[in-house]
């Protein structure tokens, strides 16, 4: 009975993915999109990957990480250096770059994950922020990354012409994280979030699962970085600063911490909306800040409780379930 339900869900999800993909491909090949929209396709995918992977640590593990942009930059630089030095056809070179970028980023995930084992909450957030800054200043001073000038002329393997590729990667990321969260490991991670002392008491290896969540999140952030580098064609250390990490955090918070569907939707909205409102660009940061504060206060206020327990809401929920 339960298996059948899961299958149904899976088929439904697959159908949605195929339809979305077909629709976008149709629009792309029919040249029906404006340049502006075409240039947004890849950033949307990148932000979806970033948000979903950050959700693993922030939403499911319950630890705020402020260095996600650092992982992204490690991946981006690794991937770019691979394709710039390899001179192979794209079909071989790009997967190597993706895997290399993901692996090096996850190596950094281990490096960062191990020290943070002893820390939780505020301290952990600050240490991840510190690591992000360390990565930035090291990239800034290394010769191979060309310092503050950054890398340019990266082959554009990840631009809209290869949208199918990037879309496929995005779908894989979502599925991988979703499956992980619903697995034994994912439940262990969630139990650490809910009460780590209790989790420890029932025999969950807290350190192991904490590092695992960090490494998986870093891996996908690295992949997002590789795609980013091969979409834009240039890399600069300043792109991956604290603000970028916060931007991803805003997506996760708006979509709902611990909700993958929410992250995906919020990533799409928060990537497209600022582009549509180009004229009000200065207000973007302002809006982000307001979103963060308002969501947090709303979540822990009485208003939300009242809405959730009000008759109208319950009725809505009931009808939805019946349908």
């Amino acid at each position, binding site marked *: 009975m339960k298996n059948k339900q899961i299958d149904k869900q899976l088929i439904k999800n697959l159908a949605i993915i195929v339809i979305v993909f077909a629709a976008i491909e149709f629009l792309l090949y029919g040249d029906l999109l404006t340049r502006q929209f075409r240039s947004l396709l890849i950033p949307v995918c990148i932000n979806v990957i970033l948000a979903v992977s950050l959700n693993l640590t922030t939403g499911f593990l319950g630890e705020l990480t402020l260095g996600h942009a650092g992982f992204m930059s490690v991946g981006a630089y690794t991937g770019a250096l691979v394709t710039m030095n390899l001179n192979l056809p794209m079909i071989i070179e790009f997967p190597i770059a993706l895997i290399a970028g993901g692996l090096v980023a996850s190596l950094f995930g281990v490096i960062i994950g191990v020290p943070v084992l002893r820390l939780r909450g505020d301290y952990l957030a600050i240490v991840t922020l*510190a690591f992000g800054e360390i990565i930035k200043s090291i990239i800034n001073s290394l010769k191979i990354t060309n310092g503050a000038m950054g890398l340019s002329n990266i082959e554009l393997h990840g631009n809209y012409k290869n949208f199918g590729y990037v879309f496929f990667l995005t779908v894989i990321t979502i599925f991988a994280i979703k499956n992980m969260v619903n697995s034994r490991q994912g439940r262990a991670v969630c139990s650490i979030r809910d009460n780590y002392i209790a989790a420890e008491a029932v025999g969950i290896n807290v350190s192991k699962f904490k590092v695992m969540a960090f490494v998986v999140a870093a891996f996908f952030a690295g992949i997002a970085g590789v795609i980013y580098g091969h979409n834009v064609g240039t890399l600069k250390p300043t792109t991956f600063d604290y603000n970028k990490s916060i931007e991803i955090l805003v997506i996760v918070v708006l979509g709902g911490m611990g909700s993958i569907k929410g992250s995906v939707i919020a990533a799409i909205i928060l990537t497209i909306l600022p582009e549509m409102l180009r004229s009000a660009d200065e*207000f973007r940061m302002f809006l982000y800040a*307001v979103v*963060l504060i308002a969501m*947090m206060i709303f979540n822990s206020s009485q208003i939300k409780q009242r809405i959730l327990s009000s008759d109208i809401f319950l009725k809505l929920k009931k009808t939805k379930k019946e349908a």
Partner: protein
Amino acid sequence: MGILQNILEQFINGLRSGSIYALIALGYTMVYGIAKMINFAHGDIIMVGAYALYVGLSILHLPAILAILLSLVVCTIFGVVIERVAYKPLRSAPPLAVLITAIGVSFLLQSVSLLIFGATPIPQESIVKFAGIKIGGLSISGITVVTLIVTTICMISLTWFIQKTKMGSAMRAVAEDKGAAELMGIDVNKTISLTFAIGSALASIAGILYVCQYQSLKPTLGAMPGIKAFVAAVLGGIGSVPGAMLGGIILGLIESLSKAYISTELSDAIVFGILVLVLLIKPSGLLGKIRKEKV
């Protein structure tokens, strides 16, 4: 002689920036001790103080003393209002929610000042007209002397306030045990507001000194000193007032010496590397107390 003089000069530079970090770190440490939260927006209060000084001097054309007062008052009000509006509703919320709100407030302050004053740096002349002193071959700039004197006065009076006055002991009591303090008749909300007010006033002084040093204003000017001061607070042991002072000065010295003798680009990495090391080896910091977590 030349090398020794050079080292001494770097040492004094480090002492100057370190004492500014210490002033900011005091705000972090006091708020953490009482409200058990990292006030991420604290760094941006420095920026508010700096801009308030600019508005007072260059737009309202006030004399320097009044402009300093204006900056102090504005920062204090900001600190208290932020606490009331953003942090108070979340007092029983999980720490993650409070932390995200604090980051939101920090972003809000930066973006509002970006909207008002724009992204281009605004030049602002130093209000310190004192030329500096010379000891032997060593010259110390006026701003350095003023910074050292001002921060010393601030630290002594803060220590006196916390140790000797009634409000100071109320603050210590709330930091120790909020519930018990409330039962003893201490107004916890008022004490928390007072802490935010004092922390923000110190941040405004730090902001004024910072602007006099670098003579330019931009919306993100508080972010870096803020984070570094937080490192200082952790280094000294968060929650401990003498620890924040010590941590700030040590951090300033390390930063200045590594800038001069190792690498300018890597100095930030070194500062943050220290944070990681401290948290790894002695998470309670140099002067902090260890608290066992109970189930």
